């Protein structure tokens, strides 16, 4: 019997839980009790190495040792191998922080995710939490906060990459009796999960970023618009808001400063279009998620007609480190006009799927092969889609493009939210093109004709091409239709749906000929 208590980490992240983490945690507690081993179980956020989930970690004098993917049936064997003291086992990976995939990352926004209990305020502060907020409270004027964010070069991580500080400046300068901060947590793009991991793994970081935004622009109330597909994130955020209020850094008197800022969580209802910022505002106001024409910009007339900062989760969660370490520290990462880091997400048919936070500038090849390790199926990578369902498909010839907003766009790509979906050579790109139109038809809000009607017509035309029905004429028609959607749609939904379609046609024309 060994009575030294060993800390064992089993992630509480939704991905880990979807692979049996709860059952593994219970089995570890059971087995430890049976063997008379003293174990302290911590349900941490994920380390982001999803292919190893459930990833069980054990604290040893040398550091945390990783085992994964662990199934319930492995637990007895792990105890037998002495995993509580870091013993060798076929599922062992050595020290977690020495795993290449993890070690080579540059984690600024995700610095704390996976370290410990996401809801522990003590751990949060011990690992640098609230330093950004304190720095914002001690700033001479609200304008200093905004200018610090401007200097950091931070751009919107939700997809559009608009400079965050400039948006904040507009809201700060807009005269109004009330202003809002809205966090867009409607992460609907397939292949993206960084918002979810952050909210589940370090919820206080998001709340802190929102509070700083509120101080910067003069808003006293914030909303988190969370998609309903993320119940775990909802539970975590609600608990975090509650505890932050109780600890006195949200609510009537932030950290004794006399300043106010509070946050309310609102659950979406399964509409992809509500990730579009103006549709999100409509939804927050209790209406159908119909896109609003711009202008007016939400920064001038947003939620309930008031000046509103709308930022994505990762954007807001990147703010605390900027206020804490300074804009220069953050801006020293990256290339060109893409400053800082982006948490990329490797998804789909990839051997080592997960989250990779790196400074802008690495190439797609590095991401796909050095980190991803090629496909899960072991077949060659044929195409990748980056930036969600509205992002173009890229062939292998484009994999040497650097991941920088401008350089990548110049090469025909779109970084968007940084989600990378990998396809092997069994993919039928004509079917993916059809899916892009079909998805748009399902999720279009219906406000503008090119998107509402064009998407349905798009499905029909692609079906005719695939059936070899007047192929040439229908190809011309498809391009014409895409042109109308691109230039005539009210928002990016209809406007960018042609991107996956046209890129599939351009790079994989043979798939439309069978």
């Amino acid at each position, binding site marked *: 019997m060994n009575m030294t208590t060993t800390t064992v980490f089993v992630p509480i992240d939704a991905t880990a839980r979807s692979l049996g983490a709860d059952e593994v945690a219970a089995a570890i507690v059971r087995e430890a009790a049976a063997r008379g081993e003293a174990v302290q179980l911590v349900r941490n956020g994920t380390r982001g190495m999803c292919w190893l989930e459930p990833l069980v970690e054990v604290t040893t004098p040398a550091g945390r040792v990783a085992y994964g993917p662990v199934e319930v049936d492995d637990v007895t064997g792990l105890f037998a191998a002495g995993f509580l003291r870091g013993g060798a086992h076929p599922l062992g990976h050595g020290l977690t922080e020495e795993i290449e995939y993890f070690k080579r990352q540059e984690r600024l926004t995700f610095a704390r995710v996976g370290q410990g209990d996401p809801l522990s305020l003590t751990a949060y502060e011990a690992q640098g939490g609230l330093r950004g907020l304190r720095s914002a409270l001690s700033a001479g004027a609200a304008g200093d906060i905004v200018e610090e964010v401007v200097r950091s070069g931070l751009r919107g991580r939700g997809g559009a990459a608009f400079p965050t500080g400039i948006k904040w400046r507009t809201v700060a300068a807009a005269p109004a009796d009330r202003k809002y901060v809205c966090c867009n947590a409607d992460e609907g793009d*397939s292949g993206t999960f960084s918002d979810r991991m952050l909210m589940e793994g370090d919820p206080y970081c998001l709340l802190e970023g929102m509070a700083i935004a509120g101080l910067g622009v003069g808003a006293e109330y914030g909303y988190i618009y969370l998609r309903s597909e993320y119940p775990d994130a909802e539970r975590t955020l609600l608990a975090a808001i509650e505890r932050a209020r109780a600890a006195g850094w949200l609510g009537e008197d932030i950290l004794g400063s006399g300043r106010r800022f509070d946050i309310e969580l609102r659950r979406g209802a399964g509409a992809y279009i509500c990730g579009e910022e103006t549709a999100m505002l409509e939804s927050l106001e209790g209406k159908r998620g119909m896109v609003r024409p711009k202008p007016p910009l939400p920064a001038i007339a947003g939620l309930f007609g008031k000046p509103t900062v709308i930022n994505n989760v990762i954007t807001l969660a990147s703010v605390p480190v900027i206020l804490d370490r300074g804009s220069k520290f953050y801006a020293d990462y990256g290339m060109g006009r893409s400053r800082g880091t982006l948490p990329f997400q490797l998804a789909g048919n990839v051997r080592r799927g997960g989250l990779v936070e790196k400074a802008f500038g690495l190439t797609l090849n590095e991401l796909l092969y050095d980190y991803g390790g090629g496909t899960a199926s072991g077949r060659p990578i044929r195409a990748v889609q980056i930036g969600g369902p509205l992002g173009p498909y890229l062939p292998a010839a484009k994999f040497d493009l650097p991941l920088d907003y401008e350089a990548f766009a110049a090469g025909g790509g779109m970084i968007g939210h940084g989600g990378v979906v990998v396809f092997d050579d069994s993919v039928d790109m004509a079917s993916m093109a059809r899916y892009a139109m079909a998805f748009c038809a399902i999720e279009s809000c219906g406000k503008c004709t090119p998107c509402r009607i064009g998407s349905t017509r798009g499905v029909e035309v692609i079906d005719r091409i695939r059936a070899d029905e007047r192929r040439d004429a229908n190809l011309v028609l498809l391009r014409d239709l895409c042109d109308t959607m691109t230039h005539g749609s009210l928002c990016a939904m209809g406007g960018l749906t042609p991107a996956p379609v046209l890129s599939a046609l351009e790079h994989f024309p043979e798939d439309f000929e069978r």
Partner: protein
Amino acid sequence: MSSDPIDAAIAASGHLPGGLLQVLHGIADRLGHVPPEAIERVAKALNLSRAEVHGVVSFYHDFREAPPGRHVLKLCRAEACQSMGSELLAARLERRLGCGFGETTGDASVTLEAVYCLGNCAASPALLFDGQLRGRVTAEKLDAIVDGLTEKQESA
């Protein structure tokens, strides 16, 4: 607080500015769907027209107007899951359950729905079974879920 689910949902969220979605969620959480009678009562309580409430109910995928089956199975059919063979799983589900997506089996045991991204894209294919997320779903794992449903039904 009232024990009537619609009253309870209105009491919990009706006061929130723009809180209609939260009220409807409250009803759907309690009843599994938003019944037609709720439209008028919610409209009255929130000082909205019935058309406005109906418009919101019909816009969002989460608000069903009829009760679902005893179990709800939502398969992700978005790109990342497609790259890992979700369409084969989709066809298998339709065959085994004998119903299409957006439909409920004849014995009302299962409602089958498509969902577009569950945020589990590094563990594709993914599905949601009675609100529980599952990742790296294989044909065998899918069969085990479906078998469990039919067995329960036989013993019931």
